[in-house]
């Protein structure tokens, strides 16, 4: 919302500088986003008189004019259609500069010498009117510098108005705030004008409201004998300052008063209204209507229409119709000033996607008791600027009267909520400027009446906010109270997640955070079927079409991004939420995943060793380390189910439940992400499972005071027996003193019999009670060998 300093000063007296005003408004909740003083460089731009106008010899649309500046006469080539002998217009002399920065010089235009330039308002930056020369009043002194004509430049404030303050979508609303801040009151503007007597408006028009909920009040005036013409300069330029285009005097007046009062007005061409009737009714489903902007809208029965005896003529509160528009031949105006239900206007505007300055105000709430004031302000201007004759009587149908809300305010409650110590007098002092009325006041209680232009004031707490705002938030003293709830427990689920992050960073992984919205194409390998993609109804792009189904998708995207930047060796992790569309019930399954990636080389060629690439056992090692740190000792491996894995892959089962997988990504999925070399290993683990299975209570297991005894055991065994099976059986048969098993050699190939593998374990034995003797260890190893032999046919490997 843009306002100007001069305009505000028509309604309130204050002496703040623009800087101080901007700060004061911002601190009262009307955030001034920027303010600037309009600057025009009018040096060498003076009032010129056009003495003669002749056709340009070589161009149909151009004229050659003689312009008098009082100081001399100049021959100027001009292209404006409205140039005529005798007119006064701004004249930029050679050396002057116009608004777009062009410097005026003597030049030849189609073979005719031209010095200086006759200017439009747009060329001087005064309005956007560019179609013709700016026409100055006849009594303007020739040769007067334009700066003296225009007067001091105005200052424009661009204010961001929160949606609860429709009253501040107006000059008066903001002026009222200034009055409240500075402790003064509003200057009332007169709405007096001459009226034509002895005529009854009922003879001209009847208004019938069919739905008083959607239209609580409809006021209207008839203005006869109007002359449609361009607005005077002051009006066009003021609208220009606040960002509104000038159309003609009548339309500009309705816009000007809307800016002034926040009450949208609409001017109908009276002769285009059939049957001298206005019906305010709901549309029928499918009813079509063409608005002023020549767009056709298909409405439903929620929409409210303003109709004449035959047809709709305006879409209530949003935009007028093309069929009743004011045009150059309009003589009689029917001026509408109404109150429409905010919710209804918003729903209709949203449905047809048409938001106007008018709908913006109605949908936030206008003042139902301000329709006549605004209408009369406009009527006054129409008389002054369009030679209109205003009919003495007017329409005011108000079937659903809206009265001020009464609110009980407790001084005690106010101070309790704000942490202040205000007296009833302190509090009530703020009310007059805000036009908040006081019904009665006894002890702690103040019964107040909220003005109807403030739809945001309905409850005690709303009034408390007003008090806080004007008392100034700065004056409320900060208190650092002790924690209110000392005994509440930490959130273990959050803390454990942070622990996992620390583990992974400790393992040398870098943390990443990716966009969790992804394309459907990339999502496909990560969900069983397309139906399970958690799609958005209104995505911003195909690349962000839905919620990611897997953390690995994000990590592969990150790999691709870095590989495109010559960073191919990567060790990354991410923890975040993923989601699938639920197939059983309406809704989504959202859960947290931990993912890690190893890509490229683990070790580049260096002075101490050759390069090494990541392999399956690197990623398996990372998974094992993470599970170990979480106190999950022992997990099973199984077949993977996801289609993006290579054969070098495995699932992670904890207590028999599938809760993640790891391995190498296959060529297809790498190609999908445009990753050229398929040397990427990854893992994912569902966080919930990790959290549930974590070791909650760590207890110290005393270490032995006695020396441990190592024993290397090398065996030949069937190649298809899984290692974890063998280890399990070693544990089962080695007795109580085996404390550690570590595989240190593995061989499968020509040196051993087909179908066998050679494996060697380093076993460590230890007792907490005594030093183990050789016999005990031998006995244990013998038992292991016998057990493995019986179970798997394993034999000791010959040296």
């Amino acid at each position, binding site marked *: 919302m843009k306002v100007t300093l001069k305009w505000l000063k028509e309604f309130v007296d204050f002496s703040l500088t623009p800087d101080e005003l901007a700060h004061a408004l911002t*601190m009262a*909740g009307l955030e001034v986003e920027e303010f600037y003083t309009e600057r025009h460089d009018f040096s060498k731009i003076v009032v010129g008189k056009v003495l003669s106008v002749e056709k340009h010899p070589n161009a149909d649309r151009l004229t050659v004019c003689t312009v008098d500046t009082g100081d001399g006469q100049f021959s100027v080539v001009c292209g404006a259609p409205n140039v005529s002998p005798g007119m006064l217009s701004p004249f930029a002399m050679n050396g002057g500069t116009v608004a777009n920065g062009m410097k005026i010089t003597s030049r030849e235009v189609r073979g005719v010498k031209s010095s200086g330039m006759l200017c439009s308002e747009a060329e001087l930056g005064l309005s956007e009117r560019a179609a013709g020369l700016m026409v100055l009043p006849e009594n303007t002194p020739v040769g007067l510098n334009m700066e003296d004509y225009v007067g001091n430049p105005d200052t424009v404030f661009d204010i961001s108005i929160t949606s609860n303050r429709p009253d501040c979508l107006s000059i008066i609303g903001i002026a009222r705030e200034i009055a409240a801040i500075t402790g003064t009151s509003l200057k009332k503007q007169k709405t007096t004008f001459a009226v034509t007597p002895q005529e009854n408006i009922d003879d001209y028009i009847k208004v019938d409201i069919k739905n008083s909920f959607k239209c609580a009040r409809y006021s209207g005036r008839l203005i006869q004998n109007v002359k449609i013409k361009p607005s005077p300069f002051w009006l066009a330029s003021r609208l220009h300052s606040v960002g509104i285009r000038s159309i003609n005097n009548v339309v500009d007046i309705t816009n000007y008063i809307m800016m002034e009062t926040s009450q949208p007005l609409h001017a109908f061409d009276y002769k285009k209204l059939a049957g001298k009737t206005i019906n305010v009714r709901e549309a029928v489903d499918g009813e079509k209507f063409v608005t002023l902007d020549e767009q056709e809208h298909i409405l439903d029965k929620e929409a409210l229409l303003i109709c004449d005896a035959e047809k709709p003529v305006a879409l209530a509160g949003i935009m007028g119709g093309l069929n009743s528009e004011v045009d150059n031949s309009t003589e009689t105006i029917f001026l509408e000033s109404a109150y429409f239900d905010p919710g209804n206007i918003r729903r209709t505007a949203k449905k047809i996607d048409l938001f106007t300055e008018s709908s913006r105000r109605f949908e936030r709430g206008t003042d139902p008791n301000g329709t006549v004031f605004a209408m009369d302000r406009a009527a006054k201007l129409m008389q002054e600027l369009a030679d209109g004759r205003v009919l003495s009587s007017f329409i005011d149908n108000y079937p659903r009267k809206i009265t001020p809300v009464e609110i009980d305010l407790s001084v005690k409650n106010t101070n*309790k909520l*704000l942490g*202040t110590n205000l007296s009833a007098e302190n509090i009530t002092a703020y009310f007059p400027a805000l036009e908040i009325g006081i019904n009665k006041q006894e002890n702690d209680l103040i019964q107040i009446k909220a003005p109807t232009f403030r739809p945001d004031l309905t*409850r005690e707490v709303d009034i408390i*906010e007003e008090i806080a705002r004007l008392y100034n938030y700065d004056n409320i003293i900060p208190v650092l109270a002790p924690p209110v709830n000392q005994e509440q427990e930490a959130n273990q689920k959050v803390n454990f997640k942070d622990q996992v992050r620390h583990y992974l960073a400790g393992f040398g992984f870098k943390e990443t955070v990716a966009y969790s919205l992804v394309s459907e194409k990339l999502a496909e390998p990560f969900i069983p079927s397309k139906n399970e993609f958690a799609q958005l*109804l*209104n995505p911003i792009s195909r690349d962000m079409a839905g919620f990611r189904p897997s953390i690995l998708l994000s990590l592969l995207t990150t790999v691709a991004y870095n590989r495109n930047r010559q960073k191919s060796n990567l060790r990354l992790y991410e923890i975040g939420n993923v989601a699938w569309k639920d197939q059983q019930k309406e809704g989504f399954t959202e859960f947290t995943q931990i993912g890690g990636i190893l890509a490229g080389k683990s070790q580049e060629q260096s002075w101490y060793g050759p390069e090494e690439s990541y392999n399956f056992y690197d990623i398996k090692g990372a998974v094992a380390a993470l599970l170990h740190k979480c106190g999950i000792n022992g997990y099973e491996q199984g077949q993977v189910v996801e289609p993006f894995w290579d054969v070098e892959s495995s699932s992670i089962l904890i207590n028999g439940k599938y809760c993640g997988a790891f391995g190498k990504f296959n060529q297809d999925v790498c190609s999908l992400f445009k990753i050229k070399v398929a040397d990427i290993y990854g893992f994912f683990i569902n966080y919930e499972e990790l959290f549930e299975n974590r070791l909650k209570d760590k207890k110290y297991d005393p270490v032995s005071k006695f020396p441990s005894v190592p024993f290397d055991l090398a065996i030949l065994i069937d190649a298809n027996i899984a290692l974890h099976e063998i280890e399990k059986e070693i544990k089962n048969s080695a007795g109580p003193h085996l404390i550690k098993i570590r595989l240190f050699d593995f061989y499968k190939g020509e040196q051993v019999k087909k179908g066998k593998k050679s494996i060697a374990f380093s076993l460590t034995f230890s007792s907490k009670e005594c030093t183990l003797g050789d016999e005990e260890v031998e006995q244990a190893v013998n038992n292991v060998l016998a057990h493995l032999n019986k179970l798997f046919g394993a034999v*000791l490997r010959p040296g």
Partner: protein
Amino acid sequence: MAENLQTIIAQISEIAAEFNKDIQQTKSRDDTEQVKVKFLSRKGVVQNLFVLLGTLENQDRPRAGAELNRLKNDIQNAIDEKLKSFQTGKRSIELFDPTLPGKEYHIGSFHPLLQVLDEIKDIFVGMGFRIEEGNEIETDYHNFEALNIPPDHPSRDMHDTFYMGGKYLLRTHTSPVQIHTMEQQKPPIRMIAPGKCYRKDTPDASHSPIFNQVEGLCVDKGVSFGDLKGVVQAFAQKMFGKDAKVRFRPSFFPFTEPSAEYDFSCFCKGKGCRVCKNTGWLEISGAGMVDPAVFGFVDYDPQVYSGYAFGMGVERIAMLKYRVNDIRIFYENDVRFLEQF
């Protein structure tokens, strides 16, 4: 010819003695290499004994095997030690170069956004707040309605929302976590809710459709606007230093009343600079006293309880802290960026 355990053990002792004699006499690398060939090569003395192992009775094999392995290891260790003694002597003068780079480590790191978030969490946990989390896919009810934002409310315009069909949407703030928490708990409540939020913004240097927010909530008897100011000010000073100042300005949010925007003093100490657009203040986020209507949705009595809520954008704070000027950088995960943190 079958051997028995005793003879094998005896031979092991003999070999050990012989080796000890030989190794003591070595005077050079070459001497040592020769001893190694004698004892450890494929046709060496120790290997010959391993062959004999196969002829033992089954029950004797582990014991003999163990002894033999121990011998082999002892010999290997002694030889390695000897070789090293020749080597170190030489390297200390000729080969050792302390200026060669050390072995490369894989250096893990935390994402800068989450580092900032960790710091924020620490500060609030220190002030008695509990961390709560919630889903990113939310219902209209929890994201809007229970926060006093009914359908068709103009303030929904501020939340350009991604819809997912039915009642589901991507949360536009972490405030729904407040509602879930209040639905499950009775006051007193003192919590923060960090997490990802979504708004339909086209990505550019200062907008991201996905961003991280921290929302705070405190509800108890007699909680005031002064308490809100106190907590936010304490946070600012812990995050940005003792000199940090906080400014509250009136604003509007449907779920708080009175509502405020709050700013932190700029690093330029009010002199005015590019970061603060010469205002001396940095806009941080919104806050306010919980609107009684919100208490209505979670069945708290607004006559008994009051509370405050505040929000903050993690990216905004991270950008200020690390002087990052493009929000998108956080989500690109360029390792050249990540390794700076």
